[in-house]
């Protein structure tokens, strides 16, 4: 499966506009997606805990995404208003 990661704010500086990750399985845990992003893009060094949004909902690291292509937003704590 492929996961299209759309980063915002401090994570966009690190990843660029978007990143596609390929996984052999047809389902993958958010924790494993974050691990891949930590390894490839060193997102931990931002010092900011990432929030993951899938399908309009904030999801935990235990959440499982599945399908051929899943869109995932990688964002920091919000700062609107």
């Amino acid at each position: 499966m492929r996961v299209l990661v759309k980063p915002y704010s401090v994570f966009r500086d690190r990843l660029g506009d978007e990143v596609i990750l390929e996984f052999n399985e047809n389902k993958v845990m958010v924790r494993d997606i974050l691990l891949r992003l930590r390894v490839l893009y060193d997102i931990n060094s931002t010092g900011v805990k990432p929030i993951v949004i899938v399908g309009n909902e904030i999801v935990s690291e235990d959440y499982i995404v599945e399908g051929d292509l899943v869109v995932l937003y990688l964002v920091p704590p919000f700062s609107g208003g």
Partner: protein
Amino acid sequence: MLIDVRILDRNEQLDLNSLISIMSRLDERCGAITLFIGLVKGLVEGDKRVQELEYTVVKDVALKIMEKIAREEAEKYKLSHVIIWHRVGLLKPGEVTIVIAVLAENRKSSFAAAEEILERVKNEVPIFKLEKRSDGEYWVIGSELRVKREK
């Protein structure tokens, strides 16, 4: 119950006089409008001058969550009308960032609802700030933390 949530660009005008005029005629049972207007600060962290504030948004997600907040608060406080407008893009100090307006039966529910809606927007809606300041560019993370932008 009327709900009006929008993500607006800087060039979209905010006619607040018309807004109040329309809201005040919507429901004869209501005796209070609370209007909150958020502004871009010119100074932050003491004396750091902000030249521009850039907002980005996960728009589809933000609109859905803003509508959910508006509906839940309208039900909780028995509001007749809820408006949440948030601007995005590049804004300058003194410019309007957010407008929240509620039409309620009385002042207590009106004030409480407006404040609660604002806090929920800040905490629940995926909108992000980048401060362009005299001492560099800083991502604003949550309500307090600032991270200097890597160049």
